[in-house]
């Protein structure tokens, strides 16, 4: 039987099923390291500001292949929340070791294989003890500040029984960085009756290839909320997180994709309804402009009866050269599961535009109002995070028609 390492090696050239195939050998692999940061340099701050993050509130920062401890991580200790660079956690915490690479197979594709073999286990490890409801969002930032490099991150989050946490991760590059690859491995565990909301904000650049790989396990009565926003040009993003739901567990998976440039955005999700009474909702909004190409894939698989799932994919084409493909899949393997999907792609409605213009909005203002409204979804995330996302979506709406 092959070892994990041998299996990873065997997958080193294995393309992902979706998205453009990237030749990773073209990019530089930097030496990973972990250090204490009293303050962040301006390029990292520049990147963080693009996703609305402020330096003082960050619990974990990764700049390229450097993982930085921050004061906020220590501040979270008062809530008994542990935030460590994954590399540290794997050394010091047997629990972390028992969780790493358990949900995600390193041999899934070349990106997971590279991360396993060369990633250096940077990223964050977050543990929320049983019954703790963390009152403040846990902010983390992953920034790429140099050209032609691969950034790896391996994030492990465990929200223990009855606990609740709100995690916000901003992934960004400062203005001026042109190319590179980001490979993010995320393994999230939501224990019984626990709740995790995960808001991910992406702001990349035209030459960046982004390959997040995420698997989430939600135990009985648990809830996982994912709210993903990407709004910048990018060379390509391909991601397909999978969420496994136990008895009476729930998932809400929302994606807001504002595509631009000539980027390929292949963004999906899958929820596996394993336990009776489990449910999932997958919502996406796509606003496509320029020559961007967007695939939204959403999949629901019901393995038990008395499960429910719904997919809603809506797209708005703002350019004659952009394209949106919506690909929903619903699979039921048990009678009694109720799964549904709806998808629609269109243009800004003339009647709505005309109406707002009659109220005194210029055509551009009216379009921005409509695009902003189109991206409005009622994601069950805390108000403070919603405000931050709203700020970004306001900018997106303005830029989308500008």
């Amino acid at each position, binding site marked *: 039987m092959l070892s994990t390492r041998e299996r990873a090696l065997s997958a080193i050239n294995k393309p992902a099923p979706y998205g453009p195939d990237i030749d990773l050998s073209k990019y530089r692999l930097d030496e990973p390291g972990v250090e204490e940061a009293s303050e962040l340099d301006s390029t990292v701050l520049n990147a963080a500001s693009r996703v609305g993050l402020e330096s003082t509130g960050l619990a974990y920062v990764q700049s390229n292949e450097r993982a930085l401890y921050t004061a906020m991580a220590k501040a979270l200790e008062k809530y008994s929340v542990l935030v460590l660079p994954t590399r540290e956690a794997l050394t010091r915490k047997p629990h972390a070791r028992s969780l790493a690479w358990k949900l995600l197979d390193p041999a899934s594709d070349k990106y997971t294989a590279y991360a396993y073999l060369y990633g250096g286990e940077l990223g964050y490890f977050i543990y929320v003890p049983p019954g703790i409801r963390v009152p403040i969002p846990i902010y983390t930032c992953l920034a790429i500040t140099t050209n032609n490099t691969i950034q790896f991150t391996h994030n492990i989050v465990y929200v223990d029984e009855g606990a609740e946490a709100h995690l916000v991760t901003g992934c960004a590059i400062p203005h001026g960085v042109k190319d590179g690859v980001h490979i993010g491995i995320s393994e999230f565990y939501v224990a019984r009756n626990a709740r995790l909301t995960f808001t991910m904000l992406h702001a990349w650049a035209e030459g960046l290839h982004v390959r997040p790989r995420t698997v989430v396990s939600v135990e009985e009565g648990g809830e996982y909320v994912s709210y993903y926003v990407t709004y910048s040009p990018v060379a390509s993003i391909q991601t397909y997180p999978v969420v496994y739901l136990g008895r009476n567990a729930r998932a809400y998976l929302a994606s807001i994709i504002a595509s631009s440039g000539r980027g390929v955005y292949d963004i999906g999700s899958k929820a596996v309804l394993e336990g009776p009474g489990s449910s999932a909702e997958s919502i996406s909004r796509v606003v496509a402009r320029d020559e961007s190409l967007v695939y939204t894939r959403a999949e629901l698989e019901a393995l038990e009866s008395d499960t429910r799932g719904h997919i809603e994919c809506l797209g708005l084409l703002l350019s004659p050269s952009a394209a949106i493909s919506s690909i929903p899949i619903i699979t039921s393997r048990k009678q009694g599961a109720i799964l549904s999907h709806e998808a629609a792609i269109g243009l800004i*409605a*003339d*009647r*709505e535009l*005309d*109406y*707002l*213009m*009659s*109220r*005194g*909005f*210029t*055509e551009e*203002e*009216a379009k921005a*109002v*409509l695009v*902003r*409204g*189109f*991206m*409005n*979804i009622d994601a069950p995330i805390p108000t403070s995070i919603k405000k931050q996302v709203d700020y970004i979506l306001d900018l997106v709406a303005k830029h989308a028609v500008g």
Partner: protein
Amino acid sequence: MPLLELIGLSVCVDNKRIVEDASLSLNSGEVHVIMGPNGSGKSTLLSAIMGLRNARVCGGSILFNGLDITNTPSYERAKLGIALAHQSPPEIKGVRLRDVASAMAKKYGCSDCTLLAKNLFVEPFMNRSLFVGFSGGERKKTELFLVMLQDPKLAMLDEPDSGVDVESIEVIARVIESLRSRGTGVILVTHTGAITEKLSRIDKVHVLIDGRIAYTGSPDVVLPVVFKFGFRKGLEVLSRGV
């Protein structure tokens, strides 16, 4: 100088003439009622005055305070002081009434929007998507609220009394009285005429039939005839001279 003057106005929708050679003149503070059967072109006429793109002026001109606005885009007309309460505003998912109202309040410098929202009973749906799932009455009140936010010089109300309950008609009538008292010119399109009974003063009634203003007269003369005989027969009676 009249606030609004239509001079031989013709309006086309999808290259079909819906309104033909319409002329009227309205002064500040006047209330004019436009009545007519279904499909006579009432809403199209208001759309053209507002500058909506689906109602193309294909003849004649529109003057507002002496300024020719025939080719002025709708948002400029709104800034000049023209407002329209649409008969069937579109449902706009995701765009909250609160967001539109607050953007408009900034544009038009409205300082007492909260009170206005309260007085027009629209507060409960401020956080809802614009017109999505609104009842007839909610829709009409919201339209009036947005018109009032614009603090217009000319307010055009397209069938504000259709599909609403008696209490709502009272509210709408109060709004019209309030607009008139502050010097706003009002054009009121009504199909049933229900609202006319609640108004203390109407200056003129225009009867629009088959796209033409077939008769213009005082409400004391026109309304009883229209209510008794209907539009076409009433027009014959009016033409004979009652």
